[in-house]
């Protein structure tokens, strides 16, 4: 189970003075939203079929997210304490190294990270491990050495596929209702194993040249207090014949 300690998109995000990094002071970090669903799915599979859920996180400060997964019910955690920046290839390679020697039936990851939005680490890892895979999965059913999945396509369509185990799936948000962490869960998490595995950072494939605000066409902003804004709004709707 792959998880990312990701920056929240809700907070104000400031660009670092070098123009190539993010000012981390303004950022709030949390478990990546897609990964919450993936952890929940992993726990449900374990509850139905037995086994063990191991969470793997890459990042120097990813402990809170790993602890959260343990509190949700994961059995143990592996932390890879390196900074892979904006290069998902390095992240996938680090995970490959870190889980060498681990036996698994299924690897789950979220579809994408909420901060960098690549949708890469899961499938990159599948390719590095020569695993069958499926992305944007909206249903997972384990059947006798196989897994039957639904995948989300465009325009509301889905496709059904069957994959052999072991395989790798990336989980779409909305697949389940992730559980809340209980006080008991948090207490239990303290005694669970969180192991650091050191790996060497690979050669970068993507190097950040510049981070900037998008040059967007800006909407005409309606200003003033609420009554004034609503008056303007009503005038706009009237002029368009909408009321």
């Amino acid at each position, binding site marked *: 189970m792959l998880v990312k300690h990701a920056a929240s*998109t809700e907070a*104000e*995000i400031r*660009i670092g003075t070098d123009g190539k990094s993010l000012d981390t002071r303004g950022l709030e970090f949390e478990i990546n939203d897609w990964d919450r669903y993936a952890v929940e799915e992993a726990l449900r599979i374990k509850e139905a079929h037995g086994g063990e859920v191991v969470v793997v996180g890459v990042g120097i400060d990813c402990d809170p997210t790993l602890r959260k997964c343990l509190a949700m019910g994961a059995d143990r955690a592996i932390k890879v304490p390196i900074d892979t920046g*904006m290069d*998902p*290839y390095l992240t996938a390679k680090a995970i490959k190294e870190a889980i060498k020697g681990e036996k698994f039936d299924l690897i789950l990851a979220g579809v994408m990270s909420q901060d*960098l*939005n*690549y*949708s890469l680490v899961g*499938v*990159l890892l599948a*390719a*590095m491990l020569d695993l*069958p*895979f*499926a*992305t*944007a999965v909206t249903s997972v059913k384990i059947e006798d050495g196989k897994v*039957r999945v639904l995948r*989300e*396509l*465009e*325009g*509301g*369509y*889905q*496709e*059904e*596929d*069957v*994959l052999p185990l072991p395989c790798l799936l990336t989980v779409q*948000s*909305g697949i389940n209702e992730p559980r809340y962490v209980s006080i008991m869960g948090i207490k239990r998490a303290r005694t669970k194993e969180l192991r650091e595995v050191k790996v060497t950072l690979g*050669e*970068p494939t*993507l*190097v*950040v*040249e*510049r*981070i900037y*605000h*998008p040059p*967007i*066409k*800006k*909407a*005409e902003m*309606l200003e003033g207090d*609420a009554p004034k*804004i*609503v008056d303007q*709004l*009503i005038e*706009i709707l009237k002029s*368009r014949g*909408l*009321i």
Partner: protein
Amino acid sequence: MRVFAIAEHRFGELNSISFELLHLANSIKGSGTSEAVIIGRNVAGFARELVRHADKVWVISDESLENYNPDLYIDVLLQLFRIETPDIVLIGHTSQGCELAPYLAVKLGGSVATDVVGVNVSNDAVTVSRYIFQGKLMVDLKITKLPCVLTIRQGVFKEGPEVNGEVINTDIKPSRSPARSFVKFIKPEVGEVDISQADVIVAVGRGIGDASNIKLAEELAQILGGVVAGSRPVIDSGWLPKDRQVGISGKTVKPKLYLALGISGAFQHVIGMKDSDLIIAVNKDPEAPIFGVAHYGIASDLFEIVPLLIKKLKEIRG
């Protein structure tokens, strides 16, 4: 640069992203070539369409390739690329492309970047531009390892020249049976309301906060003679049914009025509503990307604006 574009089709229709990839390929190939690859069964017609915008179209045709399967697609693409070596491979940022691109990149020993909206090639150095934080910021990335596989955002490279190259029929066939087997397609659920037919849509996003607040949007929609729709987080939370989802994995809508309440404006949502006649967005966050697509923006708390708007509309209606 030798630039390949992997065409995409489903249900007997070529996805327009295939042409957009070729337009981009033509603009970055320099003294090189733009080459489409079409994989499927009976795809000669698609090849004829593609070749208008490509120097070469490689056709890989087999009965087993009728429906997309990543294992088979990757198998045949690697056979082609062993002989015809790419510098850049372009794929749509779609449900297929997001599977193919990373896997191909690893097997080609190259690099990969996704959801790309700009590509710059100078002196054989490739730089790409993409959004991060769901549209709030952009980043330029230098690719340090070729070949690179890029997934390209839909709707960015809409125009391009005619090229009229040649179609090459290959005898490439899948070399093994796939690990993953395709079972069937499942059609979208049909609900009581078809939001794509509505003239007025009141759409709610994460900012609506809770299921109990949906009724506020419903009241406003009722007064305006419209329907309520939602963005992904609202559907995921079960606050609205799936058939009310606007966006790439839901419906594409073009109402006369699209009122976006508490929607941040991630690309996956915007692609489904950007062509609406009038877009008005209410979001607390003045940096929200939705204000990049809206005609009018209100950077305020929707819970201040909407109740007041309902009250005034009721007064007008009497």
